[in-house]
């Protein structure tokens, strides 16, 4: 009964507007209760792609969407992940049971509460890799991190290859055009072909290098060379037996930079600018490329030198000694921990620390309260 008495006069109007042949909600749209791939029902732009069902049709009517409709759904599924971070949808719309069966024949609805899946929250949205497109994955020009190679045989082989490629480009008259471009890695065949070339003492190639230039000036191959290991480099050096005359070839600035860039592409080690100026021939570059950089931390130096290994009364820490470590060393930390737990206080700081990234904070603040 309406609270406002005057509203009773509107009752006939409401009855007139109500459709007489309306179908109960459960009859028009079956509710799927089985966990279903999210990308299928994610509608980022708010449009409804699933085919509409006439209300006059009964639920028992066997529904089979056409091939075009299924293709449209699959295209939407693939396109739902656009460039950049995928954003959670504002409205989660599950497909009807019959639509799901048409798309995935193995689909089975849940029969009990335990079979139901739980939709995850947005707190960990940022960390999941499937929410990031392939363009978000870093593809470096050179090796990075622990993969950097500085072994002498490896650097010598890379430098030899780079020098042959530089001389080949000069021989073909394409040096000015290709000196500053990014050269493709190409496959292992190109690697072997460059190592088979002979270099004269004056810095020229003895053989015709047109095939090397042709490979170098085309695009990247399907299986680019991953480089060589130290043992492979030693085998190559033992097999080729290059004389030391090629290390005396003088270098101009442009050639030096090209060699450095090529060696960096394969080995991951970039010769510093400050040292590059002192190099005047190939041998200098080889010496610089193999020189290991000084450790950045004193703790690494102490560990390498082992100055305190024989002294039992000295302990060298690599990192700052934290408050917890200090308390642990005197056996007081377990007492502090017990007392903090007894009072219901966090032991190691607040657990719900603010997210680091701005976009991460935006996702959590925007989509936390969306009914899913």
């Amino acid at each position, binding site marked *: 009964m309406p609270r406002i008495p005057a509203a009773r006069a509107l009752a006939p109007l409401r009855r007139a507007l109500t459709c007489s042949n309306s179908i109960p909600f459960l009859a028009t749209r079956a509710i799927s209760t089985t966990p279903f791939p999210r990308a299928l029902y994610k509608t980022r732009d708010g449009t409804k792609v699933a085919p509409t069902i006439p209300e006059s049709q009964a639920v028992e009517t066997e529904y089979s969407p056409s091939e075009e409709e299924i293709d449209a759904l699959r295209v939407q599924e693939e396109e739902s992940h656009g460039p950049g971070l995928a954003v959670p949808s504002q409205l989660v719309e599950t497909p009807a049971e019959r639509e799901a069966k048409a798309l995935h024949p193995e689909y089975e609805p849940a029969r009990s509460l335990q079979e139901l899946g739980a939709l995850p929250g947005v707190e960990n949205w940022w960390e999941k890799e499937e929410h990031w497109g392939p363009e978000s994955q870093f593809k470096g020009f050179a090796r990075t991190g622990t993969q950097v190679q500085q072994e002498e045989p490896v650097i010598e082989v890379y430098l030899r290859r780079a020098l042959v490629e530089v001389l080949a480009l000069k021989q073909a008259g394409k040096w000015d055009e290709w000196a500053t471009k990014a050269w493709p890695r190409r496959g292992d065949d190109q690697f072997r072909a460059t190592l088979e070339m002979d270099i004269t003492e004056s810095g020229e190639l003895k053989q015709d290098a047109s095939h090397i230039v042709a490979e170098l000036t085309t695009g990247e191959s399907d299986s680019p060379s991953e480089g060589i290991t130290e043992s492979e480099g030693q085998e190559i050096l033992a097999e080729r037996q290059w004389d030391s005359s090629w290390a005396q070839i003088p270098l101009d600035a442009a050639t030096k930079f090209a060699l450095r860039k090529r060696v960096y592409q394969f080995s991951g080690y970039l010769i510093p600018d400050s040292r590059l100026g002192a190099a005047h021939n190939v041998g200098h570059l080889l010496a610089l490329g193999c020189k290991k950089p000084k450790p*950045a*931390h*004193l*703790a690494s*130096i*102490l560990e390498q*030198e082992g*100055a*305190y290994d024989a*002294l039992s*009364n*000295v*302990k*060298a*820490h*690599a*990192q*700052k*000694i934290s408050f917890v470590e200090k308390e642990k060393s005197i056996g007081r930390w377990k007492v502090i921990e017990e007392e903090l737990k007894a009072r219901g206080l966090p032991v190691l700081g607040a657990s719900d620390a603010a997210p680091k990234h701005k976009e991460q904070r935006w996702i959590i603040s925007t989509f936390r309260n969306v009914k899913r």
Partner: protein
Amino acid sequence: MTVHGIRTAASQTTKVKNGVGAFILQCKKMEFHYCDWAGSSRGMNGFIKGILPKFAAANPQIEFSISPRPNKHPVVTGHYINGRTKPVCVRNLSPYEILEKVELLRDASGEKLTKTNKAVTSTKDSVRGIWSPFHGKGEPV
């Protein structure tokens, strides 16, 4: 450590030497903090690399702890058996200047630095003071 030191000294000496053989160094631990980046730690880093190994080998009764403390000046802290600590900032000092500071900390007692006005220091001072032959009437012999 204290009791062990006394026992060791007592076992090694048949005679009591008025406490000389039972000497125990008051400094029990020394902490060395440095920074890898800052220029004020350059001398400290050189000290840790070059001088500290010899110093630590010469003083086995002291525990040494070396740890970085990023973006801070270098500090040497002495811990003493009376529970007190003495921190000394060694910024921009050369390794040998730092060695002087470290030796000072090693030889310190751990007590607060106080001005000494009297010849004798006692925990229970005499009310009458110390007898002196140059004061008073003097006793005829």
